[in-house]
């Protein structure tokens, strides 16, 4: 009973999103050899430019890691693309919606 209450308070989707966020942040830090710890990446700050300071080579590297881990192929011509790298949260949402593994 208490388990049920707990799961009602915190829907599984949120827990999954948090796990996935931590996992993607870890992959980014590892792939790009960044100096920050994964949990230091602010989920709503831009990944490009002034936020985390990534550039296009980094974005290509992230695209590679994301395709290997989740089977998601990023496309520049998809409508969401402008938003995908808007923040870690948006990248994670995109992966969650399109992952094949």
């Amino acid at each position: 009973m208490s388990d049920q209450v707990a799961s009602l308070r915190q829907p599984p989707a949120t827990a999954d999103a948090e796990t996935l966020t931590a996992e993607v942040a870890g992959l980014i830090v590892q792939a790009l050899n960044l100096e920050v710890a994964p949990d230091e990446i602010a989920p709503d700050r831009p990944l490009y430019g002034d936020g985390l300071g990534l550039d296009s080579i980094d974005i290509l590297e992230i695209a590679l890691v994301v395709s290997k881990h989740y089977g998601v192929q990023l496309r520049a011509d998809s409508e969401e693309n402008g938003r995908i790298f808007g923040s870690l949260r948006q990248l994670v949402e995109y992966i969650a919606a399109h992952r094949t593994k």
Partner: protein
Amino acid sequence: MSQFLSDVRHLARSFPPCTHVLNACADRYHFAVGLAAALTSGRVSLLPSSQAPEMLRQLCAFAPHVLCLSDEPAADSGLPRMSYPREQLAASADPAPALAACRPPEVDEAQLVGFVFTSGSTGTPLPHPKTFGRLIACVREQARRLSLTGTARWALLATVPPQHMYGFEASVLLPLASGHALCAERPFYPADIAAALERLPRPRALITTPVHLRALLGSGVALPPADLVLCSTAPLSQQLAAESERRFDARLLEIYGSTETGQIAIRRPTATPEWRLWPGVSLEVEGEATWARGGHIEQPTRLQDLLERTGADRFLLHGRVADLVNIAGKRSSLAYLNHQLNSIPGVEDGAFFHVEDSSAPHTGIARVAACVVAPSLGAERLLAALRERIDAVFLPRPLVFVARLPRNDTGKLPLSTLRSLAARAKPAAMA
């Protein structure tokens, strides 16, 4: 072709008064129209390697009457700007042009087409002039070397920007000078590149870099056959070359060159490690320095790589000279980066350095690190100031704050000490 000539004529007429055109167009067709419009109206094109604010300020000092032609909304750079007039050109196109209007304008061989820039060590970008006759001779030879001189009309797709010397030659000048099709788009993600290539009629070629090839092969995207893959900007590993040939079912040819010289040699890495020079180009070794001169080269140029001559027109490549920084085809020097770092108010001392050995195999994405003494600045403020001055790919990774730089008795900075500082600076989570 008549559409192109019509667009060139109309654009040339709509330029406001200016002597130089900074061609920032992202679409390769727009870029080509801008280039030809500037050329045929006696204007000089500027092709900077970066559009960092400091670079644009320096260009303004170099050419006070410069106009920035661009096809994307951009942050205000302070330069007079003109948007590529897409709609006007579409409206002005003549559906049945007179024969005379289809004849390409004649351009004198000695005419200055434009300047490309490298970073000098003093903070001022060094301009390198490019004249029409030499550029065209160089890409006509390229067409011969790539076996693109038959009757077949090729479609050339490129993942590199038209402003970079390699992209300028292979994806803009080569198709214009040899009658092949230029593809306007510049696909980015592996899935985009594969889809764009698939859409093209054959024969077709992919003009790309080790960075893109690595992403393409590793992504798991199904790759359509190409008929030729051209690669440049950094040495390609033998393994990546062989896998590229297998997956694209195509020859892979690799180009060697520099901003100053343009392309000067070619090889097929799966067949031979030796590079073959362009006709007329010669290498002269003076101690550790190698100079390239002759052929289409405008001025004798000291190369930033360690070469070994193996014949009159052949050489082997043994890595870069210590000062050179080459990240994904963007070149700079440690001296230039150090100058910019130490020009930032609040920086007392600072030095960039290579994290990896120059002899290690790489795909062109090895970053540079920096140690800095700047007690009044935080990492964020310092990085923001650097971003104003240098291209983002050169931002230090890691950036290590220290109380003083580990200079030895002679004032030099031992690389091993700098590297151990960088290694220690990484957060525990990554160790």
